[in-house]
Structures are given as C-alpha cells and as structure tokens.
C-alpha cells in the first residue's frame, strides 16, 4: 500500500487549473522521481502533498486513509516533509538555529544550544559537508544553504521525504553525497519523491519516473525502462536529440580580456587567465571555490586588485556601471536576488541596465521599451503570457532568458554568465546553450561559470578550474573530460574523489 | 435684547502646567461670559505650535467672529495671520506674548503679564536677599518670551554681586529640569540660589536637591503661580519662600475686557499690563485656586 497517495488531485489558482487530476503515490522504500518542464506543476503537486497548499479537487491518502492536511505543520506531524525548491532559511540565524527552527530542543526553560549545534553539525556531516553550525546562514553560499535546508528537513521524523530540485545548486561531489543519503533513507523504508532536471541523476536514483506536462500526468514508468533521452522526450513532447550546439573553434584569436594575478581578498588569490575573442571559456570548481567572487571582483562588484586588460588596454572597474561601459556584462547566479526585480514588469527589468538607450529628451520612451520587449521575447523565446506581467510570475527558465536578454541590451562584447542553467528544464537548457553559441559566433566572448561539468564540457572551448580561491589549471581539447576536471577541482586522484 | 456676538479665543494647547492653566481659565471664563450674555458665543480653540495656530485663526475666521482673543504660542510667526483677521474688521485682543512690532496695526487691545518683569522681580529678590549669591538658571524653551524673561533677570542683577554660574534649557519640563539640576549639583559644589523661571520645572529641581541631600542651596525661585508652589509659599517652605506671579488667568481678564467692549459700551483699547507680583507668605492666600489644574 502506498505511504502517500494523490487521487485525482487538481489545483487552481483563480479560475486556472495548473494541476489536473493527478494520481500517483509512493511506496515504502521507493524513490519516485517527478520530471517535467519548468512550470509543469511539479512544485505545486509537491506543495499539495506536503500541506503547503490545499487542493481544489481530489484527495490525499496516507497509508490508505483519506486525510485533509491543514498545513505544513500538520504534514510534518504525520511524517511528510518537503525540501523546498527555493531556499527558505532565516539569514540572520545560525545554521543550527535554522536547522531546529520551530522545534528547538529544550533543557528546562532554555533552548539547548549545545545539543542543537552538535545535532546540526552531524546532520550536515551526514550530507558529506562540513559547515560550522554556529555560523550565520546569511554568510553561506547558495550551495551550503541548500545543504542546510536539506539537513533541516531530514531531522524531522519522517515516513515520506519530498525533494524539490535539491541538487540544482550542488556540484557533483555534493550531489553524489546526497544521492547516497537518499539511498540510505530508502533502505530504511522511507518513501521519497524526487524532482530534478538532471536526468542522468534521475536515472541513477529513481525506482519509478512520472512525467508531468501542462499539469497533467502524461507517463509513469519504472526507471529501469527509461533512458535520459526518453525522459526528455516525454517531458518536452518532442525529441531532444542534441543538447549541445555544434561549435567549431577557430585557431588564433586576439585576447579580449586578460586577467593577471587578480585577487579578491578573502575569496580568490592571484588568479590569471585569458579570454579570447569569440571564445566560450568555462569555469569549473567545487562549491566555495571562489569563482563567483572572482567574477564579481572583475566587474567591480567586490573590491579586487590585480592586472586587468580589456582589448589590450589596462582597466579597473570600481562598479558595474564602469564594466558595462567597457562592454562587460555579468549575469548573477542569484537571478531572483540579484538579477531581476521580481515585483516589476518585464519591460522595466529588460531595460534596467541600458536605460540611457531608451531616453527621448528627458523622458523614457515607453513605446520603444515595449518594442524592445517584443523583440527580446521573440529573440530569446521568453514565454510570457502577457507583456505586462511581473518578472516574478515567470517560470525559472524564462526568468533566466529575461536576464540574458536584459544584459544583452547593453550590447556587451564580453559576457560572464554564472550558473546559466541552474534549475532549468532540459528544453530550455538546449535553447540557452544555443543562444550562448550564437553569441560566440557573433564574435562576442563568453565566460560560463557552472557547477555542471557536463554542460561546461558540452559548450566550452576551454575550461579553467579553480580550487579554494586559486586557479589550479586549465583543460581543453581531449583533456576536457570529467575525470580530469574533478582531479583538478579536488586536488585528489579521481579514485579517492569518488 | 442681547446683541449677538461671537468671540473666538485661540490659545496654545496645554503642553505644560502654565498653558494648562490658560486653557482652564479660558474655558471657565467662556462659560461665565456666555451665562452672563445670552447672545454671546465664545469659541475656544487650542493649537500646539505657531503654524497650526495660524491655521486655527483661519478656521475661526471662517466661522465668522466679531472679536479674536489670542494668546500666541510664538508671537512673531503669527503676526501675519493676526493681521489677516484684523484686516477683516475683527476686534483683536492680544494676550501675553507681544511680537517685536506690537502696535495698533496688529491688535486693538493688549493684555499681558510682564515677561521681562517676571525675570526682573526674581532678579531683584535675589539681589535684595542674597546679595552675593551664586545662582544657576534653568530656562524654558528657546523662544522669545524666555529670552525676555532672561533679559529682565539679567538687567535686574546688573552691577550687583549676584553671580550667574550657568544657564541651561529645561524646556519647561519637569523631567528635563530634574536632569539639569542633577548635573548642576554635580558640577558646582556650592549653589546658593536656583532661578528656574517656571513652577513646573521647580518640581524637578526640588526633587534633585532633595535626592542629593545638599544643604547649600538657600532657595529656589520659580514663577507663574501654580497652586502647588503657592501652597508651599503659604506653608512656609524654606526652599520656596516666594513665587513670581504670572497668572494664566490673564487670558480670562482679556476675554472679559473684550466682551465688555461689546456689551458695556466702554471703549477698551490700548495696553493692560498685569504686574509680575511677588507672592510671599503674606499675600499667597489670595492667589490660591485649589481646583485649577495648575
């Protein structure tokens, strides 16, 4: 009998149904993967199952018994826990305080911080990470926060665990550790729902795969019968034959960005590398390797020092305004927090970095802004229902495309994209890779910072590897393979790393 | 038979004891006058600051008034607003606080306590009774009437041996006066006399002295004539031998005079200056109103 079962679940926001008559369940000791495009309704379904939302129609059964969950707390009491897709932690509290938030351990009147620190440290360690439980969460990287969030959920006594894209911001090493943890809880007879856009990972961990499309359950198969390409086809509704675009690297090209002995105090030391015209340069590394900070230092978002030459001329950027003027655009990995104004319209977001191009006299030319939006929607295939919707209402993949369009409005010669496909479905990924390749073909130079080695290998001409704030090597040609990168990124031989 | 007359009265909001007394007397007099003259309507309005008092004048004018009795919270900023009313032919009685240019273009009648005299009487008393006194002064708020009192005081002790150790603002507030006095006591090992200008502040001063158990202070001179301080004078409190009268009841006097101008056919114009009487044990009885809030 399934531990947790949805029977004909539907969910409407207003008059619109985003989830239609979905029936599925998870058995003890089973990992049930849910896949689908961005906006297919995966998270909505999981929120229904964990009490965060109430269904419009249909019912839920726990151990065969029909229940109506009154809220997340009720669900947790019944042993159903959810790892949210978004990171939901209080930034001012410490790791341990977050892990035990709402169910603090007590000793008499007081909270038992000692026990909670120890418990949190162990919980994080179980996930293969080492994070000081007394550090404030606001200081952690996104990946570390994700791990804390998982640790927090796993500490609740549970029968069913729902993971909503837990690995989106993790590197392969941490992903590996997490998959081990999932295997361990499965072995204890716990039921697991698992959502991911990383199909090989799904293939590896899942017992059963269900596919959502437009809010409908379109397929449900044993994982053993599906290969990643099949999953992709089921999700998108067409063949996704070739994920990475064809690229033919030209030989000698001039350097457009030369970085020499560049340091961002506390994060990156004496980094040197060169970016050539029309090239796609990858940056690989583990979480916390300092890639993001190095890039932020280069474009003037953090204090940095060292040599910087753009098109041969020495440069120094005190702020983004200056680096944009020099033709360098940086797309943040944190698109919700640093990329887009979620509460503003699409057109306002699109033109924010290049408003001077839309001035007519003193005024902003609204008509031109709208025209630019129409053009960008076409060019970048942004799927927006209405032109006047808010950026926060776009699905994740479309937000990424909007961010790309926004930064391209500045017409940069050099584009630095940090984690371009984090949390993005395979169809959209394919599109984004295509855009990147096209930009390079136009003669623009691109740096891609990514924790997904496969995509770096798939689209880059060369890959720079960083470890603990240092550039430790560079791979290209036939050396561009996962093994080689992992060796550089961890500093240990591949056998040990695994 | 009684003429229909409307008198508007604009006074500061009760923000400390003295102004509270003003409000009390204005209301009391309004009631009495309206009983006396059935055709008379008196509208009393309070305002917390000059700008809103200027607004209140407009609002009174809108209601149609024959006379305005105004005790300005701060006179100079209100001159224009008062002129505005006066130019409509309204009879204007100005109470207590005079603008720098206080003539017939601003008002028809001026009824005032004597601010410089309030300072002067205190200064004189100190000069007469303790000719070599070392005095600390606690002032009110930094506005003109406070300056006038201070000037009067300074003039009175000019050329004498009375020495002012220091002046600070106590904002006509008991708590602030308490703090200032505490710090004076810390700063000066010997203080003979405290002049604190206002009875409200005297409450804080006395507490500070009592707490420090200092015996060098011979007396405190306050001013206004609150019932608490007059009671102390009556009871012969050593620290409060006298008080300087600055009666909030003057607003009532002004209202009565104004009404008289309409009903008694006596021409009331010009200036009526009430003395800053020195209240002593002997005459205290006649200034004691136990049911006033002040």
């Amino acid at each position: 009998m399934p531990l947790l079962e949805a029977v004909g679940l539907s969910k409407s926001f207003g008059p619109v149904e985003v989830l239609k008559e979905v029936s599925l369940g998870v058995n003890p000791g089973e990992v049930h993967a849910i896949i689908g495009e961005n906006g297919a309704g995966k998270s909505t379904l999981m929120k229904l199952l964990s009490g965060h939302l109430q269904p419009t129609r249909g019912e839920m059964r726990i151990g065969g018994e029909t229940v109506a969950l009154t809220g997340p707390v009720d669900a947790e009491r019944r042993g159903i826990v959810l790892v949210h897709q978004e990171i939901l932690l209080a930034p001012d509290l410490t790791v341990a305080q977050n892990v035990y938030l709402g169910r603090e351990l007590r000793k008499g009147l007081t909270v038992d911080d000692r026990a909670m620190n120890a418990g949190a440290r162990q919980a994080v360690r179980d996930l293969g990470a080492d994070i000081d439980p007394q550090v404030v969460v606001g200081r952690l990287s996104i990946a570390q926060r994700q791990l804390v969030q998982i640790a927090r959920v796993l500490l609740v006594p549970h029968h069913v665990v729902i993971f909503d894209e837990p690995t989106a911001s993790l590197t392969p090493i941490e992903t590996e550790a997490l998959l081990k943890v999932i295997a361990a809880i499965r072995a204890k007879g716990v039921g697991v729902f698992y959502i991911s856009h990383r199909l090989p990972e799904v293939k590896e961990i899942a017992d059963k795969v269900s596919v959502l499309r437009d809010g409908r359950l379109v397929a449900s198969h044993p994982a053993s019968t599906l290969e990643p390409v099949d999953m992709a086809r089921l999700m998108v509704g067409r063949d996704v034959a070739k994920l990475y675009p064809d690229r033919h690297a030209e030989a000698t090209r001039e350097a457009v960005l030369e970085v020499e002995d560049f340091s961002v105090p506390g994060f990156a030391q004496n980094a040197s590398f060169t970016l050539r015209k029309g090239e796609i340069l990858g940056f690989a590394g583990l979480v916390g390797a300092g890639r993001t900070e190095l890039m932020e230092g280069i474009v003037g978002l953090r204090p940095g020092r060292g040599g910087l030459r753009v098109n041969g001329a020495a440069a120094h950027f005190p702020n983004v305004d200056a680096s944009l003027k020099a033709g360098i655009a940086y797309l943040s990995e944190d698109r919700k927090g640093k990329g887009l104004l979620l509460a503003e319209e699409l057109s306002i977001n699109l033109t924010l970095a290049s408003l001077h191009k839309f001035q007519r006299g003193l005024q902003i030319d609204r008509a031109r802004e709208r025209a630019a939006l129409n053009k960008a929607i076409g060019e970048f295939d942004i799927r927006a229902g209405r032109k006047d919707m808010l950026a926060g209402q776009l699905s994740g993949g479309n937000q990424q495309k909007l961010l790309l369009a926004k930064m391209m409005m500045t017409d940069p010669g050099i584009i630095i994209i940090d984690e371009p496909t984090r949390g993005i479905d395979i169809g959209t990924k394919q599109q984004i890779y295509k855009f990147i390749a096209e930009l390079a073909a136009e003669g623009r130079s691109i740096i891609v910072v990514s924790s997904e080695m496969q995509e770096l290998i798939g689209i880059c001409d060369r890959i720079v590897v960083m470890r603990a704030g240092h550039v430790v090597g560079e791979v290209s040609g036939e050396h561009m393979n996962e093994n080689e990168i992992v060796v550089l990124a961890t500093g240990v031989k591949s056998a040990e790393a695994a | 038979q009684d003429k229909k007359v409307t008198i508007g009265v604009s006074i500061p909001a009760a923000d400390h004891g003295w102004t509270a007394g003003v409000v009390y007397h204005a209301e009391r007099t309004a009631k009495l006058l309206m009983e006396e003259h059935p055709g008379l309507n008196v509208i009393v309005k309070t305002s917390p600051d000059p700008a809103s008092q200027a607004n209140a004048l407009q609002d009174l004018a809108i209601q149609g008034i024959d006379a305005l009795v105004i005790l300005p919270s701060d006179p100079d900023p209100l001159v224009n607003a008062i002129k505005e009313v006066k130019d409509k032919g309204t009879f204007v009685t100005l109470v207590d606080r005079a603008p720098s240019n206080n003539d017939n273009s601003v008002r028809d009648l001026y009824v005032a306590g004597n601010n410089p005299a309030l300072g002067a009487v205190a200064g004189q008393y100190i000069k007469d009774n303790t000719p070599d006194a070392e005095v600390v002064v606690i002032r009110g708020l930094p506005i003109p009437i406070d300056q006038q009192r201070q000037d009067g005081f300074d003039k009175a002790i000019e050329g004498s041996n009375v020495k002012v150790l220091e002046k600070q603002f106590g904002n006509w507030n008991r708590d602030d006066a308490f703090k200032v006095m505490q710090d004076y006591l810390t700063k000066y090992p010997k203080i003979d006399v405290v002049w604190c200008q206002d009875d409200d502040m005297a409450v804080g001063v006395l507490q500070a002295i009592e707490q420090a158990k200092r015996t060098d202070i011979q007396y405190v001179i306050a001013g206004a004539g609150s019932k608490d301080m007059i009671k102390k004078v009556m009871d012969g409190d050593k620290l409060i031998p006298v008080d300087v009268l600055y009666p909030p009841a003057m607003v009532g006097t002004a209202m009565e005079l104004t009404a008289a101008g309409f009903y008694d056919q006596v021409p009331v114009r010009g200036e009526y200056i009430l003395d800053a009487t020195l209240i002593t044990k002997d005459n205290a009885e006649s200034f004691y109103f136990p049911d006033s809030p002040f």
Partner: protein
Amino acid sequence: MTDIAATNEKVRKSWKDIDLRAVAPFVALALLLVLGAFANPNFLSIDNLLNVATRSAFIAIIAVGATFVIAAGGLDLSVGSMVAFVASLAILFMNSGAIADSSIMLATALGLTIAMGAACGLANGLITTAWRIEPFIATLGTMGIYRGLTTWLSQGGAITLREPEIQTLYRPAYFGSVLGVPVPIIAILVTAAIGAFVLHRTRYGRHVLAVGSNEDVARYSGIPVERVRTITYIIQGLCVAVACLLYIPRLGSTSATTGLMWELQAITAVVIGGTALRGGVGRIWGTVCGAFILEIVGNIMLLSNFISEYLIVAIQGAIIIIAMLVQRSLVRKS
C-alpha cells in the same frame, strides 16, 4: 497553455489591485469631506477648502520629497528642523541688507534658500550613503544638528523678517493667487507634477524605484546605488527649500520651534498616500492626497464644536489608523 492563462489571471488581478491601492487615499479623502460637511456647514465653503488646501502646502511639498527618499528605501527625519534652519538663514540674509535693491535682494535670497536646501539634503545623503549610517539614525542626528543651529542662530529668540519693502514684495508668494487659485496650491501642484514626472517618466526615477525595490539588483544592473540615494536626499532638500519659500512670507519669522514634528507628518502623508516604507513604490499624487487628509482632519477637529480640545490629538491618532484601515479593506476587497 494553462501556464500562460494562469499567469494572465494573476496579472489582471494584480493590476486591479494596484489601481485600487492608488485610489484608496482619495476614497478616504472623500469620506472625510462628507464627515466634515456634517461637522460644520462652513466646512464645504470654497473659502474653507481653499484655506485647508493652501496650508497643507508645507507638508505636501515636503512629503513629495519624502516620497523619493522613501521610495528609494531611505527615511529623512530631519525635514522639520531643516525647514527651521533654512528659513532662518534666509531671513537672516534678507535682514542683512547685503544688497540694497529689494527685488534683487529677494531674488538672491530665494536662490540662496534653494541652494541651502540642496546642501542640507546633500549632507543627509552623504552621511547615510558614504558613511553607511542607517537613515533613521543619521537623520535623527542631523535633525538635532539643524535644530540646534537654528536655536543658536536665533539666540533662543525669534528671527523675524525686518525689511518692510521685502515683506510687501514677498507677501504674494503665500497670500497671492492666480486666477483665484492661491499661490501655495499652485506650488503644490507644480511640485507634485514635476515630482511625478521625475519619478515615473525619467531614467533617474526608474533607478530610484529599482534601488528601493532591490538594492542588489540595482547594483548588478550598473545603477550607481549610492548616487541615486544621495540625490533623493537632495530632492528632499529642494522640496524643503520650496516649503521654506512659502513659509517665510506666511509667518515672516522663525524660531527654535519652527517645523517641529513636521517630519512625522510628512512621513504619515507619504504612507497614507500608499507608498510603503520598505521602498520600491512611490505615489506622488497619493502623497499629496495624504497631506490633504492630515490637514482636513485638523480642520474638522477645529470646526466641529463637540470635541474637547484635550482629545484632539487622540482623535487625530485614531483617524490616521482608520484611514489606513479604509485603505486596507478597499485593497483587500478587490
């Protein structure tokens, strides 16, 4: 594409929402007008309404500046003291007799007032942005500084405009009217119109809202966050200066108590007008409406004869809360 349909719905709903939010303060104003009509028959007379609108000029104009500061995520508690300080300096200058010709003197004084307002605003801006001190504390500090300097300039007394010629020349700036509309009302409308234009139609205004909405996004988009913030304080200073230009001919004199508590009134006007204190949204016309509401509440209090004057402050407080409730319930119903 259910997805798109769903989003559509949301958007339409949120638009209605926004509209109602913008309309709410005007509804509250209308309710107050009705209340006022009951309180006193004179209330709805043209004279009275013009009076009220005229004297709301100080707060309304200052609050237009406050809308910028707040929309960018800042706060300025110093505006009341700034009025006292700037107006005092202006009067002292006019009294100085530095320029013989009255009209040139007046013109110079007006220019100087504007410049001083901008300078005071700049000081606030630099303290909060360059020194990175929380706006609440920074402007609480300058509030003390401006007020203290005013006390010192006036040596505890009043600073009064002496030259009768300048007075006569200057008087119409507050008491005059153009086609029956008092000058201060024109000043409100012009200031608000310029403010609305800058905030909603120009690049700078867009930057202000972006900074207030999400500072990081603004910084990552190449917007000079610090400069944008600093300029909002300068705009606030300019608005204060304009308020001073109207204040001087009205009262002709300043003292240490000039403009006391105006900062709270300006902020209240902004919030009643529908601008949230957390930043990212700015409604200039709502702000002006908020200033009218505050002034009308006071006016109704004064015109009605059944409220003990001791309770006026209490009832004003209650009305502010009720005005916000009206707004809330309107927005929620939509």
